């Protein structure tokens, strides 16, 4: 016996049974034990936070935000590009009907994302036990990345294919 039996106020010790507790020893692996958020998590968050902030400040010292000529509704630039996070849709727009690429697809993406946890009821969390989910998500991710990169860096006047080293039309 390592520990003295503890007597709580208002209780009496009737007897002390040596050995293990009847319910079995609780075995929580070290990585699942609870630790205090302060300081353990908060210092890490502070470091991550300051790191990002320093990065943004450094980038802002080196690169200036773009400012083109004043808006002119009479003069349409060519190419005319959406902000980078929508340029993937714009790329699809050049292949599909606008109703599909511009309305149906974004709508389905949002609905699909919202529904994901209710469709995927597989309780497994490791990638190798949830191949379908991981592959589907990865497929969409890669397709979206590809469309975005193509639209951003590989499209020039009239949305024609332009290699980035032959002409740069991406704007941030």
């Amino acid at each position, binding site marked *: 016996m390592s520990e003295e039996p503890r007597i709580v106020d208002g209780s009496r010790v009737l007897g002390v049974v040596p050995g293990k507790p009847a319910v079995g020893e609780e075995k929580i692996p*070290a*990585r*699942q*034990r*609870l*630790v*205090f*958020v*302060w300081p353990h*998590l*908060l210092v*890490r*968050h502070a470091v*991550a*936070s300051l790191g*990002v902030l320093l990065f*943004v*400040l450094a*980038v*802002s*010292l080196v*690169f*200036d*935000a773009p*400012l083109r*000529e*004043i*808006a*002119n*509704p009479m003069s349409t*630039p060519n190419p*005319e*590009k*959406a*902000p*980078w*996070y*929508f340029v993937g*849709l*714009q790329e699809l727009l050049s292949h599909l009907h*606008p*109703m599909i690429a*511009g*309305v149906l697809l974004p709508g389905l993406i*949002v609905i699909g*994302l*919202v529904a*994901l*946890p209710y469709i*995927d009821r597989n*309780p*497994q*969390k*490791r*990638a190798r036990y*949830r191949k379908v989910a*991981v592959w589907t*998500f990865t497929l969409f*991710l890669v397709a979206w990345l590809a469309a975005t990169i193509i639209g951003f860096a590989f499209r020039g006047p009239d949305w024609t294919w332009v290699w980035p080293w032959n002409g740069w039309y991406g*704007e941030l």
Partner: protein
Amino acid sequence: MKPTVTERVKETTVGRSIFRVPDRQTPRERAEGHWANFFLHLYPVKIRREELGFRYSWYLGVISLTLFVSLIVSGVYLMFFYVPSPTTAYGNIQFLQTSVPFGQFIRNVHRWSAHLMVVAVMAHMAKVFYRGAYKPPREFNWVIGVVLLVLTLLMSFTGYLLPWDQLAYWAITVGTSLAAYVPFVGKQVSQLLLGGPQVSSATLLRFYVLHVAMLPVILVMAIVIHLWRWRKDGTLDPGGELDV
């Protein structure tokens, strides 16, 4: 044991006036202290050790949050020098860049934080997906996350118009032209967004109000709910593949 510097400071008259309660020593006291702290109340008191590491979240949630705070701080500074009208907006930005102390720098911070926040939020979502952290009991926090993603995109998109340069004007023209293809009510949606048949002074005002008032308020509320759910869902339940 010799008292540390902090302990000695806390013993002084000033120290005692600042630190209302004596040092919390036992785990129970520390937990109570955390719980009672206004600034920490969106955080859990304790988490599983594995959640501390970089591998678990890549800290992308906190990184998104940091960028959002950076956007609020820099954005408020920009607001002092900006009037949302086609006759003033562009000139305001030029003046900001050439004549306002730190104007160009703060504008840069706002612009780059905005782009980075979109990247960080998307990466956070992907990380949560691959860790399987959208599974019960976290399904609804994932849904709130999707709302946050949409709001983040809208924040970025509405802000993009404000400099009123060629880049802004035509990017928003392309983006909003899609609204016309919404079935049945396309015209009305387009009208609602633009305040007219094309991007104009009405659009600028609408986007400005959305960008500095409506969307930030909604986004802050959604983030608060997101963090609250994270606290509630988190403590005992495994949150990803690292626990399996």
